[in-house]
Structures are given as structure tokens and as C-alpha cells.
């Protein structure tokens, strides 16, 4: 291979590479040879740069945008209409429904478990006639693009283990999350950016722990890299005050020259990796601020999302998610806080629906308009559902719902999922599943299937055992595949 020639080709394409062949330019070659040419040059392929060299199936989705609604939104008030429950408000939840199942310490001491119907109206939307709450008018508008699953179920009954379970397939901390598994399996499409990026919004409610985007026992390269709305988008991305781009380039040049000398003496390939990393770090310094700057988006786009440049919000994060998807980031995870409505639910859920409805819908619509929805899987949901009985007294316009793992709703869009579909059903109380249950492991298996991965085959040996995201279970839900 004539690497000088390749270098020259590369150098003519990228301005900063037009330096000397002993400068940064020589190092960028690695990316060229690996087919990572930045945003404009990403191209689809059944080959990946991850551990799975050739995908197990033809992939429908190339990347995932996961909108994690932390605290567990009430399926009863958003996605799963129950007119009967409304009628039964203030009556005891029948024992035949509860079946002695476990409930949390927050309501287990209550004398009564009184049913409470949703105070919100449900309407049919789109050609498919999907029934959704009045709290989600914008998501209603994209109903024909959504696959709504009403029969999700999980195992843990408290937030921390439930979020950990939804993220890693296990309640105990220590295993890798979905995003880590996917980037481990598929690698990144963009050499300038991490393969797995996380954005946070909201405040109050349940805390967010770093392990919700943690690599567990996988190498640290696969941990979700948090991009921030305020300060440096990536930690330590900016040069210190007083160090200009010119200075930084000169300093990196010097480092690289010394590193290369050392590589020549010692011959340790780790030094080569080190050299490449400084090159990549520099590229991130130039590309990330540009990526995070949404002020150049059109007014129409900003309005569609409800995004405001310079402000940290779920809406801004949704818009950034689209920008990241465009640049081939493999797994984009948004965590939005404060859905844990044990009391004051009508008020709380209205606020959170308002904070998320427009931007979530705008994201799907925007991806679709740009032709990205076909190979981007969007997932929207929390860690479990909420109870059909009230936590605390039922007052006018005020009641609460406790944690409910036995059923909840999530929706997905794009990336090979069947659009305009409602899957699974629950009983009149939205308490037990009556049709097509989807366990968290099944959900993981299906997501991986869409990405071209046979979920039983993406494993990692740790402590003598081959671990996988779906643990020892998981069935692909074929009915919801397009």
C-alpha cells in the first residue's frame, strides 16, 4: 500500500491536514484506511468496525435513538386507555386482578387500593387509529409512524434496579448497557465522534446514575460519553484559556514528534495508539462544537422542536440527537427526568408531557423528512408502568400512582419497526397483560435483531461466563417487524 499517496489524497481533502507529512497529517491516515472519513463520508455497509465483523442479518436499523423517560411515565394516562377503570374510580382493586402480587413499601401499608381512572381523554389518531391521551397531541400526529407496545413487562419494582434492568438486562449493577453492547458489537460509523453518546435533561425526580450509560465489564471505550448542554460539550474539550488553536496544533505536533521518536526506540504499538488518540482528540475539538451549535438550524426546525439555542432542554437534546444520527453516531441516549408521579400525578404528568411531546414528535418527523428514519430506530419509554390504584387519597384533580412492573407501554419508530401498529393489550385495569407480553429481554432481542444482530451471538466472556444483553432469555417479537 502506498501510504504516502493516500496521505496526499487525504491531505487535499482536509484543510488542517495540509501540514507537513510529519505533522498531524500522517496520523489521520489510520482513519482513512479504516474507512472512517467523518460525517460526509459515512456509507452503509453490512461490515462493521465492531466485534461482529459481518452482521448476522441484513440490518434494518443502523443506529438507535433511545429517549429514556426516567421515573416511569404512567401508561394509564398516556398510552393505554381504560374507560372501565374510570367507572371504577374509588372502588377497591379486585383481588382477582391483583392476585396477591408484590407491591412496593409505599402503598403496601395502605388500607385500601382504590382504583383511579385517568382524568385525561383519549382519542384515535392517524389512519391506524392509535388511541393516545390528550396529553400527547404531537405524538398523536405521528401515530402512523409509531409502533406502540402496550404489553411491556419487567421484573424489578423499584427505580434503581428497574432502570438498571432495562439498560443492562440485569438488576444488579455491573453489566454493560444496551448502548455499550451495540457499540461493542457494531463499532462506530464516525471516527470523529464516540459511538455512544448520552444527553441529559430535566431536574427533580429520580436521580440518574452514571451506570445507566456505563460499560460494565466491557472496556471503557464503550461507555456512553456524556455530551453536555452547558460548558464543554465533551469534558475537557476546550483548550485552556490562552491556548489558541495555533498553539494547540504546535503543542500536539511537538508531542507527536517526541512520541514517534519513542515509538521508534521502544516499538510498543500502544505508543501508536496514543499518537492516533491525540489526532482524534484534536478532530473532536474542531468538530464537536460545530455539531453542538444548533443556532444554525432553520427557524422552522427550531420551532418544530421547540428548541432554543443556548438553553439545556429535552427539545434541544432531541434536535442534537438528530444531528448526531446524521453523523452516524451508533447509539444516542437521552435521559429525561421527573416522571415519578407518586402524588399530584395529573399536574406532574401534564408538565412532563408538555416538556417532551412536541420534541419527541418533531424528532421522528424530522428524521423521516431527511430520510433518516428508515435506518434509525427511535425508542421512547420508562423503566416500568404505574398502578391503576391511587397512592394516597383520591382528591379532585389530585391522586398518585405507585410503581407497576407488570405492564407498561413504550413506543418505537423507524429502523424496520412496523409503523402504525399497536401491539399487546392489558386488562380493564391496565394491571395484567392479556395479550402478547413483551419482556425487557424480548425488547432487547428485537432491537438487536433490527440492527442485524442475533442477540444470542453477541457475547462477552467475563469471569468465566459468556454474558449477553439478553442474559439467558429473549425472543425477537416478529409481529412488530416491518
Amino acid at each position, binding site marked *: 500500500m502506498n501510504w504516502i499517496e493516500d496521505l496526499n489524497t487525504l491531505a487535499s481533502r482536509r484543510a488542517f491536514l495540509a501540514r507537513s507529512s510529519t505533522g498531524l497529517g500522517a496520523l489521520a491516515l489510520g482513519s482513512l484506511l479504516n474507512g472512517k472519513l467523518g460525517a460526509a463520508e459515512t456509507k452503509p455497509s453490512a461490515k462493521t468496525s465492531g466485534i461482529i465483523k459481518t452482521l448476522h442479518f441484513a440490518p434494518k436499523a443502523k443506529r438507535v435513538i433511545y429517549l429514556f423517560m426516567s421515573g416511569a411515565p404512567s401508561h394509564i394516562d398516556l398510552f393505554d386507555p381504560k374507560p372501565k377503570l374510570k367507572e371504577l374510580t374509588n372502588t377497591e382493586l379486585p383481588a382477582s386482578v391483583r392476585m396477591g402480587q408484590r407491591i412496593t413499601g409505599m402503598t403496601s401499608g395502605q388500607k385500601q387500593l382504590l382504583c383511579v381512572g385517568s382524568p385525561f381523554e383519549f382519542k384515535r389518531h392517524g389512519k391506524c387509529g392509535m388511541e393516545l391521551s390528550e396529553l400527547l397531541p404531537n405524538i398523536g400526529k405521528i401515530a402512523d409512524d409509531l409502533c406502540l407496545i402496550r404489553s411491556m413487562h419487567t421484573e424489578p419494582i423499584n427505580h434503581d434496579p428497574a432502570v438498571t434492568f432495562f439498560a443492562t438486562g440485569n438488576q444488579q449493577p455491573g453489566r454493560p448497557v444496551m448502548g455499550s453492547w451495540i457499540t461493542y458489537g457494531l463499532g462506530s460509523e464516525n471516527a470523529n465522534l464516540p459511538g455512544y453518546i448520552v444527553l441529559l435533561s430535566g431536574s427533580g425526580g429520580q436521580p440518574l*446514575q452514571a451506570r445507566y450509560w456505563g460499560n460494565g465489564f466491557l472496556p*471503557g471505550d464503550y461507555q456512553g460519553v456524556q455530551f453536555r448542554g452547558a460548558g464543554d460539550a465533551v469534558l475537557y474539550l476546550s483548550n485552556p484559556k490562552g*491556548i489558541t488553536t495555533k498553539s494547540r496544533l504546535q*503543542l500536539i505536533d511537538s508531542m507527536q514528534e517526541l512520541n514517534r*521518536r519513542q515509538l521508534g526506540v521502544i516499538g510498543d504499538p500502544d505508543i501508536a495508539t*496514543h499518537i492516533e488518540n491525540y489526532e482524534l482528540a484534536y478532530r473532536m475539538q474542531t468538530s464537536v462544537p460545530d455539531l453542538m451549535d444548533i443556532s444554525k438550524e432553520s427557524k422552522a426546525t427550531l420551532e418544530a422542536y421547540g428548541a432554543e439555542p443556548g438553553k439545556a432542554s429535552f427539545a434541544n437534546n432531541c434536535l442534537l440527537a438528530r444531528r448526531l444520527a446524521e453523523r452516524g453516531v451508533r447509539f444516542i441516549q437521552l435521559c429525561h427526568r421527573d416522571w415519578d408521579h407518586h402524588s399530584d400525578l395529573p399536574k406532574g404528568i401534564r408538565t412532563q408531557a408538555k416538556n417532551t411531546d412536541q420534541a419527541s414528535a418533531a424528532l421522528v418527523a424530522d428524521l423521516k423528512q431527511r430520510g433518516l428514519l428508515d435506518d434509525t430506530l427511535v425508542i421512547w419509554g420508562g423503566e416500568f408502568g404505574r398502578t391503576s390504584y391511587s397512592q394516597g387519597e383520591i382528591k379532585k384533580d389530585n391522586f398518585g400512582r405507585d410503581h407497576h412492573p407488570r405492564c407498561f407501554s413504550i413506543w418505537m419508530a423507524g429502523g424496520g419497526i412496523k409503523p402504525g401498529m399497536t401491539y399487546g393489550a392489558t386488562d380493564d385495569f391496565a394491571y395484567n397483560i392479556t395479550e402478547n407480553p413483551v419482556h425487557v429481554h424480548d425488547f432487547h432481542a428485537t432491537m438487536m435483531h433490527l440492527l442485524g444482530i442475533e442477540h444470542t451471538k453477541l457475547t462477552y466472556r467475563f469471569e468465566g461466563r459468556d454474558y449477553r444483553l439478553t442474559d439467558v432469555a429473549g425472543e425477537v417479537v416478529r409481529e412488530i417487524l416491518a
Partner: protein
Amino acid sequence: MLAWRNAKSPMYRTTPFHLVLLAAGSLLFAVSIRAAAPAAPLAVNFGRDIRPIFSENCFTCHGPDKDKRKAGLRLDMKEDAFKKLDSGGFAIVPGKPDQSRILAVITLPPEDDDHMPPTKTGKKLSTAQVDLLRRWIAQGAKWAEHWSYVAPERFAVPEVRNKKWPRNDVDRFILAALEQKGFKPNAEADRYTLIRRLSLDLIGLPPTVQEVDDFIADKSPNAYEKLVERLLASPHFGERLALAWLDQARYADTSGYHFDGFRQMHLWRDWVIQAFNDNKPFDQFTIEQLAGDLLPDATIEQKIASGFHRNVMTNDEGGADPEEYLAKYVVDRVSTTAQVWLGTTVGCAECHDHKYDPISTKEFYQFYAFFHSVPEKGLDGTRVRNPAPVLKVPSPDQGSRLIRLIDLIPKAEKTLADREGELPKEQEVWEKELQKQGIQEPKIDGLVKALSFDEADSAATNRVAGKIGQALQLRGSTNEFFDVGRAVSFENTNAFSYGAWVKLHGKTGAVLSKMEEGPGYRGFDLLLNDAKAEVHLVNKFPDNAIKVVTKDALPTNTWLHLMVSYDGSNKAGGLRIFVDGKSRPLDTPTDKLSASIRTEAPLLIGSRIKAFPFNGLIDDVRFYSRRLKSEEVASLAAHANLLIARIAADKRTDDQKSGLKDYFRQYAATNFITAQTRLARLRKDKDELMEQIPDTMVMDELEKPRETFIFTRGNFQSKGEKVSAGTPAVWPPLPKNQPTNRLSLARWIVATNQPLTARVTVNRYWGMLFGTGLVKTANDFGSQGDRPSHPELLDWLACELMQGAASATAEAKPHEWDVKHLLRLLVTSATYRQSAVITKEKLERDPYNRLLTRGPRVRLDAEIVRDNALAISGLLNAKIGGPSVKPYQPPGIWDGTDHKYEQSKGADLYRRGMYVFWKRAAHYPSFQTFDAPSRETCTLQRPRTSTPLQSLVVMNDPVYVEAARAFATRVLQQRGLNLEEQLAFAFRLALARPPEKKELAVLEKTYREQRANFAQDKKAAEDLLSVGESPRPKDIDAVELAAMTGVANVLLNLNETITR
């Protein structure tokens, strides 16, 4: 190739990309790299060749898990493997491959139903593996126990051809393997490399320039050994060894689950450091940490040590089931113990019999029983301090202060009781004096309206004896209140105060209101809601209003003085509610007032319009047109009681009598008050002292142990068979005639017949020094783990650790379990002292240096990357031990967690990395980037990745920028050096060695470039130098210092700097 790839991962080494990079780096060997093909073995070795095939392909159905076992065949135990099958035949017939059923089924065509392993498992034996099995059976099917379950043996040290190279027996084992494979070891590294490698390995800090010079100058034959002894004796040695131990012990400063509350375990951490410095024998080190609390006459130190297993994560999530979490804590202890000491993963057996290693579910819960009787709660009940059981550990000074207070407090209590006895008499005297002098009204201006319900307000019905004179009585019905009419008028921008004496019979009701009806509610009020005092100042509720509520409920059925003061600021912060003269803490549900609260609504006492009827007594309502000061309110509250003295003694109600008595006790009984104040101060001193005395979590046992049951499939709600404490049958039994408790378990773990502990420990220290253990899977010595690269050496070292040196001489006889002896042996070996230079051949044939064809070259651990930079710069605060510190970190890191990061100041900013506050839910970011674990669970091996995020840290994290500036300052402060000498000095500070000419030229170029930049932009220089809180000397020119800071930034970022 993924950009974010683990540098050490196998794929990385074999991509064409690197070869080109190597070429770019002027290396000469740009050729393809391939794995060396193993030579075919002659005699089949069961442990090496056969068991791994069984484990990988067969154990899932023919292994330890009895529930999953098929065909009656078990292949992990000798007697089972040769037993008759359910079907009648034999799986293995020694010497007779043709009669061995196992061979028949593995050679069936894949489509045959009986083909093994079943096609659907995705497992497939290679022809070579089938051939191995055939030959093994043909050669007699010799069986051997799994290597790590057999006690280590002190193998004879092998003979080697090159007699000159070895410095000790370790080298002979290593060299024998090298010679067998046709390798020559590398030459010894130069002395610069050696001292730097040794220092960073043994104390985690780089050598100083002086130390390097001394070592280079030391021409004695044992210069190196002297250096080793100096480092082993350094107090930083304990820190270095503790660092790795903290990962294993999952040490952290927060609880981990959910809220991730704070805890403190630094006394335990200090104990670990001290134990390593004292070279506490490893068996003792183990026993004290697992069961220090159970040792006879346990010392405070031994109890502190037992905190090892209190480092588990704990939870306090509302609604969680305490039993579930109690179980999780115990499971964690079982897993951690098994991993750290036995190199065995037992976690699988929590739900089902282990698939690969002979540990049944029952045995798991027997092990569990050892840790199940700690008197702890499943939900720890605290988000701010250590959950019980804890041990308070005062310093000597704190101890003597505490003893003094414990002595003084009862004495002060006695004095107070005496004074109290004298009160009735004193009160009589005082009252007489008072009547003589007359009772004065306190002078408080601004009174605009007062209602005493005595005479002037006799329009009010239902009057009864009140706080003073008469009071308004109300019974909580909506048509019962006192309508004052159009009285008082306040504006949102006025300062004003109002309040009354109240005695509440119900829990809810308005004391007073001047407020319109809903929906607007314009006006103001004072009401009690669920016994909490509430005040609304409203233009329009809730959009333009203030609402404040006392955090605490107030007592009912007793007289309370309530007073509200407001400063006219439109802010809830300007509003106070006083109860009995004291301002109370408030919640602020609404704080959005910006418009008028003036209203024509009547002033009502005892109600709002059609709402909040009051049930109880109201007296002495007052309105002031200014904001009363705290002391004025206090005086008003007190004065009411004093006024009682005006009533003739025999006319006073009981309430009034006690009111006057209260006044006397609070304000006039000088002797009593003095005694009371003194007692309060002593108690406060004691409370404060107790608060300052650090505590630490320790282990303890319930008097009545908890019962242990097998949890079916690991579900804590599904209790199966009851079990008692015990150890798995695969290992030697517990010592007889000792109680079956944690202490016996600890002793069993370090018993000389325990095959794993010494091997696992030796392996861990080998890994610390050489980058990878002799067993690569440091946490798995079971059948799925890697076999040791040098099995005989591993065993030999394990014996050396357990028994002391084979070659011990009388004058320097190391004791048993002597960790310093082990490390000394390893670092003085020629193997360790080799240069790290990699040749083409060695990279090809020994890519991961498992054969030790060269010296170790390893990227520093996260904390040491930082310590190294701080040490080079001279900023390092080398203080050892104490509470954790919070150095700079970017804002927002803790945002998701609801805790506020309160950054440390001054010298604490420069403490070693191991003292950085370890928050499990939001890790100190640069450590996370450099692979430090969050310590949620036990970590035996950190991965070592190499990523661009690491580059960003060392280039731009203020810690490193400040270090670069201090480093530059240090260089420029060297007297009498020219630029070249300064740069060479800088180079030596960072890397110990002197620079090559060309390296110096690069630094000089860098300096000149940066100098030119900063000369053009002096503001930029000032900006750069302003990073970090340490002061900078003003006598160095900013441009010069900034330029040298640039050079320092380059040096700190070199691969060589973060590698040893």
C-alpha cells in the same frame, strides 16, 4: 477499526493500520503480524488439553448443574465421568476409543440428533480437538483434578542453559520457558528506566531528580537492591498497595444504590495503608478484614479492619423491600470474598448450580450464611451518614475531651436540678419585687391595630379567659368568627407585621384573614393547616402570590405566640413566621408576588371568608405597620406572660400560672438560667465533639443469627431448603472443633491446605508489576479461566508466599505470608529488570508479553497518572490518610444525582488520587476516563484503554494545566540555567532520563513557538497562567512562564510520561 478501541485488544494489533503507523514512526518492521501456531503436543495432558474442551463444550449439560444434566453424564468429576450412562454404555472407556460413547457422538454427522455438542448450541469441536480426545482415551484417559483445586507444590527450579542471566529462581522459571521457545531475554534496562519503573510500581510516584542522580552515582554492586529497600520502606508503599486493594474491596464514599448517600470509611482505608506499610502478614491481613470483630479481645484496629465487607453498596430507596436488599448485600459479600481470595466466581450459583465449577446452589447459600447475621438493615435508613453497625474512633485528644465532658455533664445536671428546686421560693421574692417596681410595656412602634378581647372588643361573642385577660373562643364552625370590618390595609410593597396568641384545639383554621374569596384570593392571612402555620400574600393565587409554610407542625392545645413579619420585598425570603418569639424554618411552595395585595375584604378573626373556620382560642391580635425585628417579636412573646403578674395571684387560671412561671424561668431566674446555659453548652460541646469524631462501619454479629434459606432461582421471596453455614465440598473442609462462623471461614481461607488463596494473591501482585497475571483471568481460576502461562512458577511463588523463602538465611528470614518479600523477589528479578524494547520477532511471537520476553511497559493507573503530574509539578500534597477530598471538577458532573459538589480548597486540591471523593453514581471524571472503576462491585482487574478522551484530559483538565504551570515555574526557578539546561531539567523531571539531542531540539522549538505566540498576545499568557487556584510567583515574566507552561504541557502529555 473503531476509533475507541482498547489498545490491548487483540484485533488492534493485527490491523494494517498500525503497521503503517509503525512505518510512519520510522520503525523498520512493517510486516504482517500473526499469532504463533502452537506446536502439536506429544502426550495429551488432561488439564491442559482435555478439560478446557469439556468445559467450553460439554459442561452446560454434563457439568456441575444437576438440573440441567443430560444422559446421566457428568464430565467435571472423575468418578462421574467414568460411570455407566443412563443408556447403559460408558462415555469414556480408558484405552478404548472405539468403545467410548463420547467419541461416537462427537463424530456423528451434524444432522444426526445424537450429534454432540448439539448443533443448536452453536458449539462445534474441531478435528484437532476430536483427535485430542481420541488420543487421550487411547493413552489411557488419565484424569487430573482441575489444577487450581490441588494444593500448590514447590516445584524444583528448572535448569537453564544461560547461567549468567538469572538473578533469582523466578528468572530460572521464566528463562527455561524462553529457552524452550527459542527466545533470548532483553538486556537489563538502563538505570533511568529502572528507578522510574520501580518508583512508580512500588510507591506510585516518580523519582525526584536527586534520587535519580543518587542512583546513577551509586556504583556499589547492590545499588539496585538498596533502592528496592528504600522504596519498600517508604510510607507511600502502603498507599500504592492499598490503591489496588480499594478496587477489590469496592471502597467508595457513597452508598451506591439510588440516592447514593454519603458515607465515610477513611479509617478503614487508613488501616489498609498502615497494614501494608507494617507488612502485616497476608493471612493476618485477611483474617482481620473478614472477621476482625470476632477475634478474641478484638482491638479497635481489628474492628476497623472488619469494615472490608461493609463497603458493599447499600440502599435507601423509598418503597424498596428491605429483605431484598439485605440479600443483595450478603450476595455481594459472598461474591467478593470468593473473587478476591479464591479467584472464583460463585455468583451463578445464586440462582442455579454453577455451570462450570463444582459449586451448587446449596453450597452458595451455605457460604451466604456466614455473612447473613450482620445487624444491619436492608434499607440503610440514612442518606447522610454511616448506617449501623458503626464504631466511633476518637483521636487521643478527642478522647480526653470526651472523657472530661462525660464527667462534667452529670454534675451540671445535678446543679440544674438543685437550682430548679429553689425556683418557687425565688419566684415569690421576684414577684414581690416586681409588684413594687411595676410592669412596663415593651416599647415597640408602629402598632396600627390591636384586639385584646378584654373590654374594647366586647362585641365579640364567646369570650373566655385568655392568654391575658379574655380571649375569643371559636369552635370550628363556618358561621362563627369575629368580623372586624374595614381595618388595616397593607400593600405588597409595605413592610408590616401581624400575629396573635392562639391555642389550637383542632389542626386547621385561619387565625386571621383579610382576603377575598376564590378564585383570586387577593389579600393576606395567617392560618394553621394540619398544625403547620401558613401565610399567603396574594394578588391572584397561585400565579401572583407568596405562600410559605412552617416546615414543622406546631403543638396544639397550648398557647402559642404567632407573629408574621414581611419586608415589602415581594419575595418569600422577606417573610418570616415566628412561633413563641423564634423564627421557624419555612417551605416556599409559591414565590411569585409582584402586584398589589390590597383588598376591601373585611378583616376576619378566626376564619377566611367561608373557609378555614378556627377551633380554639385567639387573643391579643396585633398589626404593625413595619417589619418587627426578631428581638422585638421575642420580647412581645415574652411580655404577655409577664403581664399575668398584674392579675391577682388567686384569680389566675392554670394557664396563666404556668405562663408566669415560664416567664420567670426564662427571663428572671438568674441562677437557674446560668445553670441551664452551662448544661446546654456542655451538651452541645459533647454533641459537636461526637459529630467530629469519625466513625467507620464495622462488622458485627446478631445475637440470634438470621436463618438462611436457599432462594429458589435467586428469588428472595421464594424460600427453599433451610441451610447452615459451610464451605463448598470441592475445597478442603473447615477446621473441626471451631465454631462455624466468619472467623473460622477467614482462617480457612488462609489455611495452608487452601489451594487458591496464595496462588490468587501471588498472581495479583504479578499482574500489578508485569501488567498481566501469570493467570490472565485474575478473577477466574475455575475451569473457564485461563491456564497459567507458567504453572510451576505460580505454584512456586504461592509456596514462597505461604511458607517464607526457600532460600531464607538466618539473618533475613522472611515470615510466612510476607508480601514485601514476594514483591522484593519479583522486582529484583532479571525478568523485571529487562528493557521494554520490543523487537519485530517478539511482537509477532509474544504479542502480549505473556512469556516475559521483555520488561513490562504499562500505562499508569488513573490515580497515578494524576499523582505523577502533580509530583512532577511540585504541587503534590503527600499527606497520607484522612477523609476524602474534592478537587476541581467541571460543573454539572453531579447534576443527575441531586448532590451538590462542594470543592475542597488549598492543599486538599493536590492530595493523591486515592483520596479523591469516590462517588459511585457520578465518578470523578478523569478517573473514569482512565478506566478507574466506579467501585459498585469488586474489581480485580482494571481494563487499560487508550482513548482520545484521555488525551483531552491531560491536555485540558485544569488539574493538568495548573500542574503544567507549576512545573514550568519550578523549571524557571532553577538558578543559573540557560534555556537548554532548563529544558533538559524539565525533561528529567518528567521522565527521569536526560533528553536526546533531537528531543531537546523539539522542546526548544516548542518553547520558541509558544514564546512568539504569547509575546504577541500577552493577555493569552495571563489567561493561561490564571488556571488553577495555586498562586503563581509574580517575579517571573508572564510570556516566559506561559511559553514554558506550553513545554510542560507537551511533556505531561507524552506516552512515556503516563507509562512506566
